[in-house]
């Protein structure tokens, strides 16, 4: 999962499209702005979110805490043995 700048994403989100009611909480409160509401519909006629910046996801699971419909959650990716970036690790 290499992003635009060759940075390995630290986390990822999983979305259950059919359970979404498009309240937009996850899109608004994602601290790194990973998500956006898509133009596609689910079967109930809502626009579920989709990932627009994979590499920015930190896997903090704030989207999962906010989602009132239990339709999304974030998780940390198991990191490969590469040395972690000291600066970003400290910043967190």
């Amino acid at each position, binding site marked *: 999962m290499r992003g635009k700048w060759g940075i390995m994403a630290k986390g990822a989100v999983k979305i259950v499209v059919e359970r979404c009611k*498009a309240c937009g909480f996850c899109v608004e409160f994602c601290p790194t702005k990973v998500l956006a509401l898509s133009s596609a519909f689910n079967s109930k006629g809502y626009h579920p979110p989709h990932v627009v910046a994979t590499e920015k996801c930190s896997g903090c699971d704030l989207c999962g*805490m*906010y*989602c*009132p419909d239990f339709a999304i959650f974030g*998780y940390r990716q198991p990191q490969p043995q590469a040395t972690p970036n000291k600066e970003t690790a400290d910043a967190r």
Partner: protein
Amino acid sequence: MSEVRNPVEPFLRMDRMPHIWCPGCGIGTTVNCFTRALIESKVDLDHVTIVSGIGCTGRVAGYVKLDSFHTTHGRAIPFATGLKLANPKLNVIVYSGDGDLSAIGGNHLIHAARRNIDLKIVCVNNLIYAMTGGQTAPTTPNDAVTSTAPYGSYEPAFNLPHLVEAAGAVYVARWTTYHVRQLARSMQEAFAKKGFSFIEVLSPCPTLYQRRNKLGDGLETMKYYKEKSKVRNGAPTSEVGLTMQGEIIVGKFVDRDRPDYRELMRHRLAETLGDRYVECEELVCS
């Protein structure tokens, strides 16, 4: 990679999903916080029980895959009191709405707080009777338009933290659905606390409250919570009343210790009956 699952799913009756809550309603968010608090506090789930009354928030008991009890309107606290007294090992959580707890069950709320029964109350406050069509509730702030107050509500509203503190609660906190991490931590603290703990959670009701008052949708309300809420831990509860679209004081207001009902009962009976008083750990047959 093995399949990762939403951490909330093991706590839900997935066959009942999707739930009935409206798009933008915050009750699901409080359930997320509740399950995170259960995971973090590592409590034995066999000894956790949820009791709820009637209303939108009352549905939580039906959706959560724990021992749960969906009771009659306003009587969540009496049922929970009986449960706790019969089986003191249980961690009894009352999960209900503002109308159920403070209006129809208002008397039970203050008396459970007075007797300091070891219950954890999560009161999801959407400022209105939502399930029955948006009537004025005791928590509806001044000037709010509801289905029974088309020219605006003129009744003074309850300040719930102040009410339960005065009645004798040992733990009182207020958060909004915007403060998810703080809310989860607060719930964790309440699980560990002995005595009557009360957590008020402000939640949007986009269908009935926000729509009638032209305040936008659930997301707009969440932005308002973000903008206008102020964390003041230990603030005097007499100053935390809610006003229409005004500032919201959130935080942990009260954290004190008082002997709970069972302790007082044990003390008195042991004193009077002496050896004849035999303590029973569990009254229910397993």
